[in-house]
């Protein structure tokens, strides 16, 4: 039978129909198609190279990060090394100091000792504003949306620093203002669309259901165009279905926005499902650190979680 080569377009979609860039995953797909009679013969080769983790540059590095409240050492000597594109988990029992770490990394608290670096740049002691401009954005455990603004406006606040426009031009609606508003609006809609929130863009943020509020917090943080995204218990209060969807969203966000993600989570299914590496905190100190599945099986970690 005659076999002629046919040209095909390959596109890989995830289960929500969103395109996936396989190169980012360290995969390569080669498809050869031949026309045979009335049908096709497809020759699909999937090459998977394990991502060369240690080749990737370090995004966040923390050395000996510590903070003291009065006599209490809330975080004591934390070392972290997170590489580009990584999904990194920070776990530990309640009161272990996880959120305090986030508060230090975003400049809300000043570390008593230790330093941290974003892409090699020392950000220790910088203000939240400066740190955000350098590229760290976060969500909050107890949701902190701007409740009197709409969903769209919440995201547009995140875009504030990306659309330059003076007070004067806004006051008098000069062309500069119109242009920057248009860009901001479009970009905000795009982010909302990606997060599946676009249909709610005119709702007040406070009127969204809980799970969507958490997603909106992620959308708002992404709008600031971060290199590193800190998620504080993104799955808290979600049901298993929502958590599953959230896991896919987090993975998708990492690809689409090319961000590195550090997340705090109690839901072990989510942690073991998406985190490549983990650090376990207990009483402010590192209990274990390393590959997710290896760490989660260590006896001391099991003990800290389940008790004696």
């Amino acid at each position: 039978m005659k076999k002629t080569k046919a040209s095909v377009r390959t596109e890989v979609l995830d289960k929500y129909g969103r395109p996936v860039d396989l190169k980012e995953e360290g995969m390569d797909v080669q498809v050869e198609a031949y026309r045979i009679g009335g049908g096709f013969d497809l020759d699909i080769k999937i090459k998977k190279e394990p991502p060369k983790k240690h080749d990737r540059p370090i995004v966040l590095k923390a050395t000996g990060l510590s903070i003291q409240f009065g006599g209490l050492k809330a975080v004591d000597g934390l070392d972290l090394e997170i590489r580009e594109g990584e999904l990194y988990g920070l776990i530990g029992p309640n009161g272990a100091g996880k959120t305090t770490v986030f508060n230090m990394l975003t400049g809300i608290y000043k570390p008593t000792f230790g330093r941290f670096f974003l892409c090699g740049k020392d950000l220790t002691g910088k203000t939240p504003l400066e740190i955000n401009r350098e590229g760290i954005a976060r969500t909050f455990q107890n949701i902190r949306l701007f409740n009197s603004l709409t969903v769209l406006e919440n995201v547009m606040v995140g875009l504030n620093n990306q659309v330059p426009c003076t007070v004067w031009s806004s006051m008098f609606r000069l062309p500069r203002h119109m242009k920057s508003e248009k860009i901001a609006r479009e970009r905000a809609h795009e982010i909302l669309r990606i997060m599946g929130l676009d249909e709610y863009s005119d709702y007040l943020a406070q009127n969204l259901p809980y799970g969507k509020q958490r997603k909106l917090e992620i959308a708002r943080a992404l709008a600031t165009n971060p290199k590193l995204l800190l998620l504080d218990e993104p799955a808290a209060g979600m049901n298993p279905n929502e958590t599953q969807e959230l896991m896919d969203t987090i993975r998708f966000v990492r690809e689409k926005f090319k961000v590195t993600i550090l997340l705090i989570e109690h839901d072990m299914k989510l942690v073991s499902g998406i985190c490549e590496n983990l650090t376990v905190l207990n009483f402010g100190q590192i209990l274990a650190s390393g590959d997710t599945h290896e760490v989660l099986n260590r006896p001391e970690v099991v003990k800290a979680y389940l008790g004696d």
Partner: protein
Amino acid sequence: MNKTGLNKVFKNYINYLIIVAIMLVTIPLYFGGILNDSSFVTPNMLTQMAFTIILVMSLNMVVGFLGELSLGHAGFMYVGAYVGGILCCYLYKSGLVVQSTHRLIICMLIGGLAAAIFGFIIGLPALRLRGDYLAIVTLAFGEIVRGILKNTKIDPAEGPLAGLIKNPATGFSLNSSKGKFDGDLFIFAFIVAIVVLFCIQNLMKSKHGRAIQAIKDNEIAARTMGVNITYYKLITFTIAAFFAGVAGALFANYSVVSYAQFSYNYSIEILVMVVLGGMGSLTGSIISSVLLVFINTKLQAVLTGDLASLKYLVYALILIFMMILHSAPKLAGLREKLNWGYVSGKIKGIFGKKTKNVSIVETEVSSNEEN
């Protein structure tokens, strides 16, 4: 155009429509001779409405949008009235600016700038202080300004300002020989009100306005989202003070600029109008200014002597009831029924933003705070 689109357009222009409507009704009546100093509504009352609209909208920027309480707004107005008034007299007597409209515009800008400088200075503590402390600082500031201006005598023997302020405590007033605006002040004042509305409304609907409201809703979240808190607090205080100064310069052409006029009570009166109209609602600010100025003027004729303080009694009750109605945790159910929606930090008056009714199923979840 669909319904929501129309609604949006309507929302954008309703504020202008209100002011223009007032002008369209009153100006023909005024030129027809029906509206005069002895009629039901007087030109004086209209002037007062116009500069009150400016004052209330500018205070709303600080209280309603930024979410900080300023009790020194009358102080900014005093600065504008003082500087603007003296400048009016100077420009007229020295013959520098002959045209009375030009003169008033210059005085408004300079008076506004002078007030803005003070607004900037008062904005500096606002960077470190919040809530109660800041409110007291603004109050203290208003008193300091009054104390200083009360004792500042401008009475050179000769020159354009000779004899202007003989007794600082009782202040000064402009008249036609001292450069007072010689036109229909109320028309001019309403035009200024429209310009001020234009500026404030545009600003509040821009990225800057969103940032300012974000600070009110959640300062920590705003900071971590890259909103420059320092900049926006300063700019809000400065711009609000500028417009209060503009209103002051108008006032200098309207009545006596005296120590007693710009007391703490006046600051509260402006605050009452902001609260009644709804914090964060410019439409509310305009309507409540017009309404309260009207009622005030009418009551003044009826209530004399000590009964005049009935007005303050009503103001006090307005403040207390509005706050309990809109913020008491126990009344949350009632507010929901009335579709007011409860937002912490946002207190709505009669014209405040209504929240969109949502039919999304709410999943109640409590999260434990950590650390």
